[in-house]
């Protein structure tokens, strides 16, 4: 097993994220997946948008592109079409990927371009100071919804399934082992793969909604975890509220997996060398 720091820009650490923010756990799980798959470090491209989640690209020692707000899937599409041999991974957030960048995300899914999108959902805009996101639950407090959010929120996985993503999964940042496994599956999946990682924002969401610090938010995630696939499902023995229904849309595991033709742009046939 390689030291995971091989894939880290150590000189850039510690990273800018707040104490208790689980985004760093997600980066680590991703690096573990890259290591498990033994991907060539020079052939991995990480493409990010804007926001806390997107800052992760700066710390991963691959070819990294920190683009514009919401547009990462579009940058990644051009990159992948021009260099199909690269493993292109988009790291985005709930605001980045579902609000300003929602259009790019669903079209990348529809095309079935062979990239992996990891959407880190912390239910709020962290980088800009705690404003309501398309994933902020109804009733939750954000700096722009001081009396509680009145808008409905997106179910990212359902949205992406509707858009035709050929691989859709949800994992919890509190479950790094499952997260790594699903990420490895997503990277190797032929076609567009989407992972919603349920993460946390203790600094804003936690503080505004009295949900505790990073540790409390993280462990409380597991009590909402209903695994639908994978060997770990049977192993969960503790449930915070065993008798109540899990919140809707919180099913975890691989929710969609199909193989359909991969989009590679309009190009000539395979080069005929003869």
């Amino acid at each position, binding site marked *: 097993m390689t030291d995971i720091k091989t894939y880290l820009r150590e000189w850039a650490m510690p990273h800018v994220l707040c104490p208790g923010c689980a985004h760093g756990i997600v980066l680590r799980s991703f690096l573990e997946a890259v290591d498990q798959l033994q991907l060539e470090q020079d052939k991995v491209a990480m493409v990010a948008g804007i926001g806390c989640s997107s800052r992760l690209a700066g710390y991963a020692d691959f070819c990294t592109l920190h683009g514009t707000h919401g547009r990462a899937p579009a940058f990644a599409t051009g990159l992948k079409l021009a260099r199909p041999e690269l493993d292109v991974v988009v790291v985005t957030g709930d605001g980045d990927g579902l609000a300003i960048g929602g259009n790019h995300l669903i079209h990348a899914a529809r095309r079935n371009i062979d990239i992996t999108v990891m959407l880190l959902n912390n239910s709020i805009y962290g980088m800009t100071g705690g404003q309501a996101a398309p994933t902020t639950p109804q009733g939750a407090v954000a700096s722009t919804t001081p009396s509680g959010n009145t808008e409905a929120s997106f179910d990212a996985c359902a949205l992406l399934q509707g858009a035709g993503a050929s691989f859709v999964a949800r994992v919890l940042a509190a479950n790094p082992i499952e997260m790594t496994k699903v990420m490895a599956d997503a990277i190797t999946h032929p076609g567009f793969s989407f992972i919603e990682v349920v993460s946390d924002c203790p600094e804003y969401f936690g503080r505004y909604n009295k949900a505790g610090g990073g*540790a409390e938010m993280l462990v409380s995630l597991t009590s909402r975890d209903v695994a639908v696939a994978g060997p*770990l499902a049977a*192993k969960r023995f503790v449930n915070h509220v065993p008798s109540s229904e899990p919140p809707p849309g919180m099913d975890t595991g691989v929710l969609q997996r199909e193989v359909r033709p991969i989009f590679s742009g309009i190009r000539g046939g395979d080069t005929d060398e003869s």
Partner: protein
Amino acid sequence: MTDETKGLVLAGVGGQGVILAGMIVADAMVRAGHDIKQSEVHGMAQRGGSVFSHIRWGPGVDSPLVPRASAEVLAAFEWAEAIRWVDYVREGGAVVVDLRTIVPPGACDDRRNWTTAYPGIDPELFLDRQLKTRLIDASSTASELGNIRAANSVILGTVAAFCGIDDSHWEAAIESLVPRGTEEINLAAFRAGREVADAQAPAATPSPEGFAGPHQIDINHSWCKDCDICSRVCPEYCLAIDNNGKLGIVDSDACTGCRLCELLCPDFAISIRPPMAEAVTTNG
């Protein structure tokens, strides 16, 4: 006078001495002049299965079963049992949990290969309910005194702090009920547990540098943001945040190398090195 009736739940797994402990509690209460009723479940639940004992005391007790949200104290000999029974504790009541055996068999796929599932431990459960919580390491304490089987007396020592009867009744009950020849060690264990009950912070002092255990726990303090995730998720309570808010190692001997702290550290600040690496070096 049900208002004055108090309850205690003892919960553990088979083999931990839950039933004996229950008998000691009942005996101590009788010695203190209370009416008591006790019920217990065992049989199918021996050796690894769940065992519990309900005890109620007061001027006049009708039912032996402790209703939900009414117990004065929960004494959990094991973590999962603490969670199973915590609903029975009244608001402001006490929970005494032994840390030594809290990893239930179902939590890990294979520790040796580090494929451990995070079991979903949630200490916030206790904080939410505003419970007086005492997390103790009864087995270690008993071992140090010379017999690990005295662990249940350590637990009773801590429990005693919340039951409101004089320690002399406890000590008399222990003397009369524990196996012949173990009276002294059990009394010492009881007193050790009694001391823990009064302590606020974890008994052991966190070490910022770490120390050698079966697995080497390295903390990179220049990256660590002291967010406390690692110490909350460590199934063996090896890590803790000290009074200055800094992360330290409490007990590296207990580390099983499950790597949850490492994998769940958002800041890449913890690394766990397996004992295998040392063995190879030594042999080489």
